[in-house]
């Protein structure tokens, strides 16, 4: 339909008879900051896997008018699509600088590759500053703290200069301040690029999402602004399940879908902890 942005139509992924993504339609405008939420096992990661070519799928995935399905992973990446993984994946034995330099270099010719790096490329210097890793640039990435690895991954996406960023739980395990800083960065980045973030922490979603898609059992359950989605009865049903009971806590339900304790992003008041564990735990 629309040439720009990401358009997913009737996407399906099946593992040995189990359908993990079950006919998903998705339209993400350029410059959007879309959050993908949903309980554990909803198919969020699998959806990103299918878009980036990691798992085979049926249906259609178009980005900037080009069909992505059927292309190998590295070709999809070259079309301007980058992703991070649920568990930060960096090249542990290489330094921070080397990690970023590799991410910046997919277009390099053989002659450049065979030579030693003489100077740090401009985008790499900028990414080092943006991610606050300048002082650690000669450290092996394996020696970084968990949060720093996640920033390094985001930095790698930035230097990769992709136009669509797919981030799988980028702030999991980060402190409140770190989350805020990451959210601000994603907000800045999203203006000129399209950003899709898988996230469990509802505080984070509320603060930074421009739009939200809720996945459940492989299907799109709800879509819209944060407020729209929070008000959606089906979403409340999925997140609160039978534990809260439909209507047993009428007034507080819409507000308690996301964790509403400021800062900690954990259990909202008035709802049994078990029912909201999936929303709040942030993996």
């Amino acid at each position, binding site marked *: 339909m629309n040439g720009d942005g990401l358009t997913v139509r009737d996407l399906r992924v099946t593992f040995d008879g189990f359908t993990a993504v079950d006919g998903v339609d998705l339209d993400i405008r350029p410059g959007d900051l879309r959050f993908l939420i949903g309980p554990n096992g909803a198919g969020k990661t699998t959806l990103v896997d299918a878009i980036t070519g990691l798992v085979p799928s049926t249906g259609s995935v178009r980005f900037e008018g080009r069909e992505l399905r059927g292309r190998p992973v*590295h070709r999809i990446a070259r079309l301007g699509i980058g992703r991070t993984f649920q568990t930060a994946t960096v*090249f542990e034995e290489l330094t921070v600088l080397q*990690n970023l330099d590799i*991410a910046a270099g*997919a*277009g390099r010719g053989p002659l450049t590759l065979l030579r030693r790096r003489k100077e740090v490329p401009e985008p790499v210097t900028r990414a080092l500053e943006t991610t*606050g890793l*300048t002082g650690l640039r000669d450290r092996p990435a394996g020696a970084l703290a968990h949060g720093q690895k996640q*920033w390094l991954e*985001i930095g790698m996406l930035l230097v990769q200069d992709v136009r669509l960023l797919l981030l799988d739980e980028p702030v999991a395990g980060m402190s409140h301040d770190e989350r805020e800083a990451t959210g601000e960065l994603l907000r800045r980045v999203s203006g000129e690029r399209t950003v899709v973030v898988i996230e469990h922490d509802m505080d984070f979603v509320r603060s930074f999402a421009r739009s939200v898609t809720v996945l459940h059992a492989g299907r799109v359950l709800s879509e819209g602004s944060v407020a729209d989605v929070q008000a959606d009865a089906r979403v409340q049903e999925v997140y609160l399940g039978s534990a809260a009971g439909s209507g047993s806590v009428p007034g507080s339900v819409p507000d308690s879908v996301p964790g509403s304790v400021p800062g900690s992003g954990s259990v909202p008041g008035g709802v049994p902890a078990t029912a909201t564990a999936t929303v709040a735990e942030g993996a």
Partner: protein
Amino acid sequence: MTTTLSPSPPSAGAARKPAGGPLAARFRVPGAFVLGAVLLVGVAPLVLSDFRLSLLAKYLCYAIVAVGVSLAWGRGGLLVLGQGVFFGLGGYAMAMHLKLADAAAAGSTLPDFMQLYGTSGALPWWWAPFAHPAFALAMTVLLPMAVAALLGLCVFRRRVKGAYFAILSQALAAALSIWLIGQQATTGGTNGLTDFQGFFGYDLDDPVNQRMVYFVIAAVLLLLMAAVRQLFVSRYGELLVAVRDAEERVRFLGYDPAAVKLVAYVGAAGMAGLAGALFVPAVGIISPALIGIVPSIGFVIGAAVGGRASLLGAVLGAIAVAWAQSTLSDAFPAAWTYLQGLLFVVAVGFLPGGLASLASAVRARRARPRTTPPAPTGGTA
């Protein structure tokens, strides 16, 4: 606009510097290289007898294979257990040329062994081009590289990994040596090709010319070490390590890991081919027993013991293991086979970085007593 992500950037930003100050660090590698060159080209020929020097020439051929193993296995994570194939292709290409040249010098068109087993009396068509020295020389390197490229394309595209790749390599080495044994009339069979008189016009019985062969081998080793060292510190070298440790991640950055691995694999094959070609004048024989399954494992043991990810470690390991083999296998022929297997298992299982990693582990412990050393170098591809 460049607010940093980190609310409080950690201060521990000091890069790890090698001991001995920046100047020493700068000249450490070139210094070691010059020292090695002086030892190999200057000292060894002076202090070693002709016999010992020719033994060293043989060990250096194994060291050349190890340079490639260090690249493909050490940096690329490809457990190349079939280097005998490439060593053999290079060796046979060279041996065929020497045989034809010997025959021509004796006024015959057929190599001596063919006259002996001779069936048809005509030179097989695939022997004929090897009469040209330039063609034969080129083939010693290009033939192994072409075979590796073909095999690598199939294997890496299909994402065949780890043990399967190693088994496939072994099977290929077995197949080649079995085929050679079966083709007695055209390849010399089990005996291989041996009994060479001349080497591009030089008499191989003359000790002076044997020394020349030694110098050529030493020079090739040093040049390849310099080239591969350059490759290690190049951007390609970094990319190769990245592919070894997290192939999938590299793919998502827009690279094709198959292409990255292919370069290392084909390069290592070319080096093994060259080593095989140089082995022929140095040792005077190439035969199926030198290129089958057991020697193919032997080619990586030296690198494993010395430290496959460290170029110098791999080279010294290969020389040491080759020396141990020729010393021990005469005295205890049966025991050596077991010892070889044991060495391999111990090196791969318990000391993945080889002896080279012991030194740096000790250094790291002295520098940072509290932290645990980093995880061992990645496994097999």
